């Protein structure tokens, strides 16, 4: 202390200056360190590849010849001229629309049944959910086996005197089969989410509606649906984006056939890029897929304002 007094006092006493490592600065450092792995991963495996897709899509990449040439909009012109693209987009739309409608309706139906608080619903819930944990390709293989021309399904139909079609090889039934296989695989997931939402609807609301003389259907339509609409929207977004990614089921069950009736966009992209080595054209297809995802997500966010009920 005495030593200090001997020296001339500095203009600002060091003891009064705030330490450099304030809590704010420390938090900024900690926050950045904590998000760093995730951020680096997104840059390396999402942002950079997305940029590269754009770059590749204006080039022609010949893997065997080792050439990589700028071709401007050629791949996009090819996209517009591609005779198969129409059927491919049609198959993609058919698959997604069919799956989303069936999946959400069945999930909600099962959830409402399970929400009746009967004994033994846990057993049923477990059974409906179990395909979710079965290896996707294993599930697909056994359905492929069941749907063979001489397979189990037609065998059982035959016992009943019905002559079933060759499910996976006829134009009319192949797409329906692929949708059904995917439906039963994952509907349990949406069912569980709906069940949780249903259990959050207060019982008094049903009581009040009943006193007002609302029928069971009216109670479902006017009380249940509005109250679980956030969950409906969420499951819809997840199911649509998931349906655009379907690949293993197509590759194992139909290889996109018969003709192109089950060739969805991701399968077509895989064929073009990794079977025919058209990386440039495949990149243009990738961007098409990306724009579809973007547009659908944007549309759904807008819909959210329109009909999702929020407790204000």
């Amino acid at each position, binding site marked *: 202390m005495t030593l200090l007094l001997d020296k001339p006092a500095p203009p600002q006493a060091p003891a009064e200056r705030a330490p450099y490592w304030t809590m704010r600065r*420390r*938090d900024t450092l*900690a926050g*950045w360190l*904590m*998000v760093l*792995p*995730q*951020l680096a*991963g*997104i840059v*390396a*495996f*999402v*942002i*950079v*590849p*997305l940029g*590269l897709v754009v770059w590749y899509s204006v080039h022609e990449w010949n893997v065997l010849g080792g050439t990589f040439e700028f071709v401007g909009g050629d791949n996009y012109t090819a996209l517009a001229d591609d005779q198969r693209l129409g059927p491919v987009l049609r198959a993609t739309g058919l698959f997604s629309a069919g799956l989303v409608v069936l999946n959400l309706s069945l999930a909600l139906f099962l959830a409402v*049944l399970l929400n009746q608080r*009967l004994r033994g619903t*846990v057993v049923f*819930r477990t059974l*409906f959910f*179990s395909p979710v*944990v*079965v*290896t*996707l*390709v*294993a*599930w697909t*293989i*056994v*359905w492929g086996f*069941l749907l063979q021309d001489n397979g189990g399904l037609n*065998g*059982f139909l*035959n*016992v009943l005197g019905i002559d079933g079609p060759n499910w996976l090889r006829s134009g009319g039934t192949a797409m329906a089969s692929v949708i059904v296989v995917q439906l*039963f695989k994952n509907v349990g*997931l949406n069912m*569980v*989410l709906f*069940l949780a939402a249903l259990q959050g609807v207060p019982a008094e609301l049903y009581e009040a509606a009943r006193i007002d003389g609302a029928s069971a259907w009216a109670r479902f339509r006017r009380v249940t649906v509005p109250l679980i609409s*956030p969950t409906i929207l969420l499951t819809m977004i997840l199911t649509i984006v998931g349906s*655009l990614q379907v*690949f*293993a089921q197509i*590759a*194992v069950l139909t290889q996109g056939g018969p003709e192109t009736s089950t060739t969805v966009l*991701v399968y077509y992209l*895989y064929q073009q*890029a*990794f079977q025919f080595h058209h*990386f440039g054209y495949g*990149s243009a297809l*990738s961007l098409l897929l*990306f724009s579809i*995802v973007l547009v659908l997500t944007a549309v759904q966010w807008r819909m959210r304002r329109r009909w999702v009920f929020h407790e204000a």
Partner: protein
Amino acid sequence: MRLKLLIYGVLLVCCVPFVFPIWWMATTSLKPVAEIFAFPPSLLPGSPTLDAYRQVFELQPFGRQYLNSLYIALVVTVGTLAVSALAGYAFARVKFRGAGVVFVVVLSGLLVPNEVTIIPLYRMFDAFGLVDTHWPLILIPMLGAPSVLATFIMRQFFITLPMELEEAGRVDGLGRFGLFWRVCLPLARPAIGAVSIFTFLHSWNLYLEPIVFLSSKQKFTVPQALTQYVDAYGGPMWNTQLAAATLSALPVLIIFVLAQRQFVEGLAQTGLKG
């Protein structure tokens, strides 16, 4: 009472397409070849045999492939937990400059499924000589687009924790990482459970990525290996495929049935609730 019976009846009928394929997979794998297309179809094998299971291991290094899938899925799960818990905690509870921008950049991963970027991802890993290794199957799910949903779930969970918890921790002299590790993470068990389950299943089910990146049988994963049991004409060897399929599905199914409450309720309770 009649309504109750009706509901049970409907539930039972609804069970068929969920349960029957699993039953059919397991029983067909025990049937001799001559029996698998027998008419009328039989629900139980007439003369059960383990031939198909023997073939599973004779025709391919299936044990090795099984281990490949298992260790990849475990590494991806643990890695995703670390990455997503840290990032989710930071987004939920740490106020730092640039957090908003970083969050938007990270969330963009939700809009870019790996199928969109599979071509450049292949070229990138090829440039580093990592094609036909397990690195792409580990790094992409752990750090790339699939991990974003995990981060989001973690964030949604950490956001619900009360402020007082961390203030108490601060009084005890904990810094940021201490608060994360000692106070918040131990409370995050439901979120950790949900993220582990769906990350494991996601990795275990991957199909496009393995067939794009892997070419040698020793390195194959289970889903890829299942489709390789074909006869000389390229037709599927059904009972062998179904035996391998049963082996791939059964352990996960058993774990699920034993822990179904944690599975189902964990998934329903976390941020996925909307």
